[in-house]
């Protein structure tokens, strides 16, 4: 499970400034920092008041507060880079074995 930190308005962070609450959340497994930090995680029983005044209460809610298309682009780039890094590592490994 990925540990994220939520602030007073339930925005997610990847590091704690000392005021945040740590939450373990499977939703953010294998997600890059940019993706994570574009989301809110409202715990069960808490109430979120959106900037336009809409109120969300009830159970645990995970939803983006930044444009999802930007977050998805960042996540795709992260996954592409991870794959490239893995392929490079494999090439080096195989190149080492062949020597």
């Amino acid at each position, binding site marked *: 499970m990925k540990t994220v930190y939520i602030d007073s308005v339930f925005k997610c962070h990847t590091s704690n400034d000392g005021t945040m609450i740590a939450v373990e959340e499977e939703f953010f497994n294998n997600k890059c920092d940019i993706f994570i930090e574009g989301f809110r995680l409202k715990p069960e029983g808490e109430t979120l008041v959106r900037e336009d005044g809409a109120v969300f209460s009830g*159970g645990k809610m*995970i939803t983006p507060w930044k444009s999802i298309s930007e977050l998805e682009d960042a996540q795709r780039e992260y996954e592409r880079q991870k794959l490239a890094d893995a392929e490079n590592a494999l090439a080096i490994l195989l190149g080492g074995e062949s020597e």
Partner: protein
Amino acid sequence: MIFNMTGGGGNPLNFQVKTYPSETELKADNPKENTIGVITTTTMTSWVFSATEPKEPEVGMVWFNTGNLSNVEFNALKKNTLQVYPIKAKQYVGDKFVDVTSMTSQGGEWHSWRVYLYKAGDQCNDITGGWTAIDGPGGTTNFNATYINCVTDGSNDRYATPYTKNKVNVTNYSKLIAEILERDAETNLFLASAVTGYNMYGSMVATIEASDKGSQTLELDIASITGEYHIGLTAYTPDFDVMNVWME
């Protein structure tokens, strides 16, 4: 289609726009057919129907965002030549558009502006393409006459996930809402780019969990989500019913 009126009478229009300071006052009124009621305490200086945000709004302007589906569609002209599909209302306050609540009086009743994705047995095929399900061996989704029912026999891989066959365009909507009856586990209402069963964290973009048991309304914030996604519900050890699902 852009419509811009600043009031005035006389009139080929088949509707009217009125403002009310509260929902209580709106519902106490009994106006004529196709009255659009806007709940606001900010003076409405003008109104416009448009599929895109007006570029040079004046303070107080009410923008009725239009789409191609609406539960309160109406003919704007008395000669029935201009069908309008309002989906959302916003008012220019300060320096930006903010959501305001609108309802339309039709058939002697006030109707909230919603796009239904499932309504008491109606799968709303025009927008959803119908509903389907991915169930584990221990879970079952039943599409009953008036509700969706998800149950388990307690065996392994006991999940049930009913969802829309089509991806639904959620742009311009700020809430996804489901009315359910929760009897056991935490049912999740979700949006996902792909539906694969139960754990969809690779493709899910938003979710809200039911709290406690009993009848409840799940309201998921989708204001920052644009584009098309499958909409559905899922639970491990499912025991829930779905009565209505809509966007507003």
